[in-house]
């Protein structure tokens, strides 16, 4: 049996709140499945499971805050656990498992405390943000049906004041994310239910700290730590982007609008390839130890338009075609801005790429995200005088700055990394 624990989703995270379970006892899960949402200072993170099997027990209830490393669920081997789960599933559950902390278990007593529903119904419930716990099923043997879920989609819930109000699931999720007190909100939805549009202008909970403030606090803590603890060194290099941009222009002419690439994907791929060649920059510093990275996972600094900054990882960014990388990058940035990042994206990067060129600055001197050991900043691609074959010509130039941890690498190695990056960008057709 394996334990699914509260993950560390950042260097400064010591505890997290289990926001929501997306599985219940008896569910079969595979490696990589998203099984829970954890609320952190960086927002709500979808947490994946790294062990396949059957959920035997949910040990922590929704809304509980627990330290990193706390066991959240027990996962049994698929074969044995499924056998033990099959009997209770075929008949209404006796529901004798502990509910004292929203805990559900399966195993020792043979009890099953999880609502019966097909995977399709569970997916629908997830889409509509309807918790299956407590729903009365109208299907065979009390099984929850799609209609049960949809009818429950607009249901009475307890407002922060304690009053019962009707609110749509989406509005409820929005209110939770924005810490809105919807007690006195006038609903304009079906049967007077509160819809998302009704939340505009509604007040925040009196004692609540806004997500924006929490994120700011998390960023401040991480950057202060980085500045205090990491002996940064910097090396800078100017790269002629003429060949890469010409290749990109021709490439995009041959592609449909949905397949077009942006220069950022070339930067990303070049960083990932250079990282492979320079393993000293592909690591994390944890405690007093260098932990070697296991792939080429590059964090992308994504600014949130309402304020704030996140840097989820694009894993194995050196793999696959540029078109595939472009699609993955677009998806990652979209999800980061929508607050739908995954746990594996929060911890696996060893280096971060930040690009402020589109905001017009010529260069950026960035601070490392601990426990990573490097960060690379791209400025704007600007037309500059450049010497080619002893002639001064106008070329598109980008200034790239590497900030790295001097405990792990040195300027010589950093310089070699930037030169490798330059070489990759001179051969865009091979990226």
């Amino acid at each position: 049996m394996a334990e699914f624990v509260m993950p560390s989703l950042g260097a400064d995270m010591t505890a997290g709140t289990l926001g929501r379970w997306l599985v219940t006892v008896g569910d079969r899960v595979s490696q990589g499945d998203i099984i829970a949402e954890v609320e952190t200072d960086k927002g709500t993170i979808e947490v994946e499971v790294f062990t396949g099997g059957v959920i035997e027990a949910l040990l922590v209830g929704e809304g509980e805050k627990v330290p990193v490393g706390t066991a959240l669920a027990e996962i049994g081997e698929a074969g044995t656990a499924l056998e033990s789960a099959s009997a209770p599933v075929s008949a209404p559950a006796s529901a004798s498992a502990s509910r004292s902390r929203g805990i559900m278990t399966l195993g020792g007593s043979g009890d099953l405390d999880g609502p019966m529903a097909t995977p399709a119904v569970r997916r629908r419930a997830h889409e509509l943000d309807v918790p299956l716990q407590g729903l009365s099923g109208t299907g065979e043997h009390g099984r929850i049906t799609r209609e049960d879920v949809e009818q429950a989609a607009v249901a009475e819930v307890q407002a922060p004041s304690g009053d019962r109000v009707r609110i749509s699931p989406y509005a409820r999720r929005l209110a939770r994310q924005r810490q809105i007190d919807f007690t006195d909100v006038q609903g304009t939805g079906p049967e007077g239910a509160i819809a998302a549009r009704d939340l505009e202008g509604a007040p925040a909970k009196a004692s609540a700290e806004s997500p924006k403030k929490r994120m700011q606090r998390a960023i401040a803590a991480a950057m202060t730590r980085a500045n205090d603890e990491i002996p940064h060194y910097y090396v800078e290099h100017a790269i002629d982007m003429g060949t890469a941009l010409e290749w990109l222009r021709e490439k995009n002419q041959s592609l449909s609008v949905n397949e077009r690439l942006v220069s950022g994907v070339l930067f990303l791929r070049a960083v990932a390839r250079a990282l492979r060649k320079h393993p000293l920059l592909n690591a994390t510093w944890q405690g007093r130890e260098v932990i070697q990275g296991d792939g080429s996972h590059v964090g992308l600094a994504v600014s949130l338009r309402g304020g704030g900054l996140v840097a989820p990882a694009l894993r194995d960014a050196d793999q696959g075609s540029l078109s595939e990388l472009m699609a993955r990058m677009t998806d990652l940035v979209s999800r980061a801005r929508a607050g739908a990042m995954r746990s594996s994206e929060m911890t696996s990067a060893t280096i971060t790429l930040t690009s402020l060129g589109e905001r017009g600055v010529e260069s950026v001197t960035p601070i490392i995200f601990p426990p990573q050991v490097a960060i690379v900043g791209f400025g704007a691609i600007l037309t500059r005088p450049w010497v080619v074959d002893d002639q001064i010509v106008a070329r598109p130039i980008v200034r790239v700055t590497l900030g790295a941890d001097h405990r792990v690498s040195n300027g010589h190695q950093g310089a070699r990394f930037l030169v490798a990056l330059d070489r990759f960008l001179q051969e865009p057709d091979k990226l």
Partner: protein
Amino acid sequence: MKRDEIRATLMACLSDVAPEIAEEEVEDDVDIRDELDLDSMDILRWVQGIHKALGVEIPEEDYGKMTSLGDAIDYVAGRI
């Protein structure tokens, strides 16, 4: 297609890219990259959305003709 219908479609496509942008804060004559903090990936997604909604193909070299919402409406109106 009338101009206000094109505007509504372009705004809907923009909302898909940046849902946090309120329609009333988008004026027709301001630089949308600068004012709305859009980057090249956002612009590409916007162009893709316009293509899907209206069937208008916008080549990369014409992005510069769509710096403001008003410019974009004029550009699209000329190609429907």
